[in-house]
C-alpha cells in the first residue's frame, strides 16, 4: 500500500482537519462526534439538509456543505457508516426551526445508523433514501438498489429548494422525484485499498473490468474483458435507459463521475461517447456534470448518471451554490 498516511488510526482525523483548514471560509469541522457544518449559521426557518456516509467518497459529502446544498455532513470511518451520535449532534447544531431532512444512501449500515440518529434527535425530521444504481435488481424482498452518484444531484437540487424556503415536505418530495428520475451505472478497472486493510479489496486482471461496481469496491453485475470506451459506455447507457425509459427528446442531465483514479481526460472521453450515443437515441442533454464527485478512494473507473429533468429540477440545478466541491452562480 502506497498512501499518504502517518498512522492508520489518525487517517480520518488528519484528513478532516486538513479539509477544515483548506475550506475555512465555507465550513467548520467539528470533532467527537465528527461532523462538518456550514461556517455561517443556517438561517431561521430554513430546512436543514444533513447527509453522511463512510469516508473515502470525497468530495461527497463534506465537499457539498455550503450555501445551496447541505447544512451538515457526517463522515464515518472509511467505507463504514457514521454513528447515530454524529447525526444527532449535527442535527442539534444546524436545525434552525425548519426541521431536518436526512439524505441517506441505500446501504444497510447507513440506513440503520441514520434511523437511530433520527430516533435520538427530538426535533422535527424526515429522511430520503437514494437508490439510483441500476446495476442491482430492485425487489421488495431485498435491500434493493444502492444509492450512489445521483445522491450528489439530489443534494444539489434539494439544497436549492431548501435555500429558497421550501418546506420539509416539499424538500422530501423533490428529493424523491430526483432519485426516481435518475439512474446510475458504474464500471471499475482496478480495486481500491482501504487504509485499515492495507491491501486491495478485490483482485482484478490487467485486462478485466467489473461491470456494475458499487462505490466501495463491492462487486457488481459481472466481470468482463475490457473493451473500447464506446462499447463500455453503450452498455452502461443501455442498462440505465432500460431502467429510466426516457421519452424521445426528453431533457436530461448527463453526469459522468470519476471513481477517484481515472483522469479527467478519460472522463471527458466517456462524456463524448455518451453524448453521441444519446444523440442517436434522440435523448436531449440539457445539463452536464463531469468530474470526481462520488469516489471510491483510488479506484480507476467511472459511473454514468442520467437524470430526467423537468422545469422544477432544472431551476433548482441552475440555482447558485457555494461549497468546497461545487460552486457556480455566486
Amino acid at each position, binding site marked *: 500500500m502506497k498512501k499518504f498516511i502517518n498512522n492508520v488510526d489518525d487517517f480520518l482525523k488528519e484528513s478532516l482537519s486538513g479539509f477544515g483548514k483548506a475550506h475555512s471560509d465555507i465550513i467548520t469541522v467539528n470533532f467527537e462526534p465528527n461532523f462538518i457544518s456550514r461556517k455561517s449559521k443556517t438561517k431561521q426557518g430554513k430546512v436543514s439538509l444533513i447527509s453522511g456516509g463512510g469516508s473515502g467518497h470525497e468530495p461527497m459529502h463534506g465537499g457539498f456543505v455550503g450555501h445551496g446544498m447541505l447544512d451538515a455532513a457526517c463522515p*464515518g470511518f472509511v467505507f463504514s457508516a457514521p*454513528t447515530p*451520535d454524529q447525526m444527532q449532534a449535527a442535527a442539534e447544531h444546524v436545525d434552525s426551526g425548519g426541521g431536518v431532512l436526512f439524505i441517506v444512501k441505500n*446501504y*444497510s449500515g447507513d440506513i440503520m445508523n441514520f434511523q437511530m440518529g433520527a430516533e435520538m434527535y427530538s426535533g422535527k425530521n424526515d429522511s430520503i433514501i437514494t437508490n439510483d444504481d441500476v446495476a442491482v435488481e430492485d425487489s421488495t424482498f*431485498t435491500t434493493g438498489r444502492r444509492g450512489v452518484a445521483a445522491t450528489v444531484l439530489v443534494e444539489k437540487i434539494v439544497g436549492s429548494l431548501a435555500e429558497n424556503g421550501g418546506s420539509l415536505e416539499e424538500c422530501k418530495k423533490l428529493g424523491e422525484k430526483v432519485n426516481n428520475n435518475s439512474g446510475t451505472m458504474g464500471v471499475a478497472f482496478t480495486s481500491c485499498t*482501504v487504509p485499515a*486493510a492495507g491491501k486491495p479489496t478485490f483482485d482484478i486482471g490487467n485486462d478485466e473490468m467489473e461491470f456494475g461496481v458499487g462505490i466501495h*469496491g463491492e*462487486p457488481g453485475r459481472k466481470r468482463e474483458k475490457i473493451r473500447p470506451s464506446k462499447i463500455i459506455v453503450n452498455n452502461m447507457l443501455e442498462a440505465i435507459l432500460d431502467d429510466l425509459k426516457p421519452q424521445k427528446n426528453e431533457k436530461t442531465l448527463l453526469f459522468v463521475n470519476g471513481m477517484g483514479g481515472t483522469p479527467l481526460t478519460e472522463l471527458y472521453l466517456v462524456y463524448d461517447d455518451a453524448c453521441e450515443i444519446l444523440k442517436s437515441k434522440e435523448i436531449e442533454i440539457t445539463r452536464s456534470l463531469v468530474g470526481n464527485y462520488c469516489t471510491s478512494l483510488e479506484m480507476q473507473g467511472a459511473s454514468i448518471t442520467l437524470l430526467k429533468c423537468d422545469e422544477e429540477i432544472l431551476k433548482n440545478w441552475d440555482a447558485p451554490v457555494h461549497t468546497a466541491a461545487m460552486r457556480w452562480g455566486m
Partner: protein
Amino acid sequence: MSVNFLISQAKNIQFVINENAAEIEALDQNIGDGDHIFNVQRGLKLVVELEDDIKNLPLQKGLNTIAMKVLSGIGGSSGALFGTFFMSMAKTPDLDKDIDFKKACEMVITGINAMKERGKADVGEKTMMDVLIPVSEKLNELKSGNTDMKEGLSEIIKIAEDRMLGTKDMLATKGRASFLGERAKGHIDPGARSSQLIIDTICKSLINK
C-alpha cells in the same frame, strides 16, 4: 451475569476474533467490502478499554455505557446492531437482582430480538441473524425447560456452527452481499462467522467454568 463477567468475556472474544481476523476479512472481501472485521475489532477494543470506568457499576448502567460506546465508536452495520443489542439487554426488567442462567437467557433473547427488528433481517438472508436467531430460539427453549445448562450450551455451540456454515450456499437478500445475486453463493457470511465465534467463545468458557 455481572459487569465483570461482560468484560472478561469481551477479552476472551477479542483474543478469538484477533486469531481469526484474516479469515473473516477474506470472507468479507469476497462478498462485501472488507470493513466488518475492523469494525468488530474496534468495538471489542473499546469495550475492553472501558474496564476501569465500568467495573464497579451496576449491571444496567454498565450495559448502557457499553451500548453507547459501541454505538458511537464502531459505525457500519455492526455498530448499529451490536449497540442495539446492549441497549436492549439493559432494558430487561429486574437487572438489580441476582442474574441466574434463566435471566441471562432472557437478556440475550431480548437483545437479539431488538437486532432483528433494527436490521429487518430474518433467517435465510445470509447475515449474522442466521446464527443469532436460531441461538435465541434455543435459549428460549432452555429458559423454560429443564435441560442441564452445560448440555444446553453444547447444543448452542453446535447450532451456531451449523447455521454459520449454512450461510455458504445462501443467496443474500440483506446487506452488501445482496448486491451480488448468485455471486454471493459459495461464501460464508462474515457476520455469521464472527457471531458464531463470539457465541462459541462464551459458551465454551461457561462450560469449562
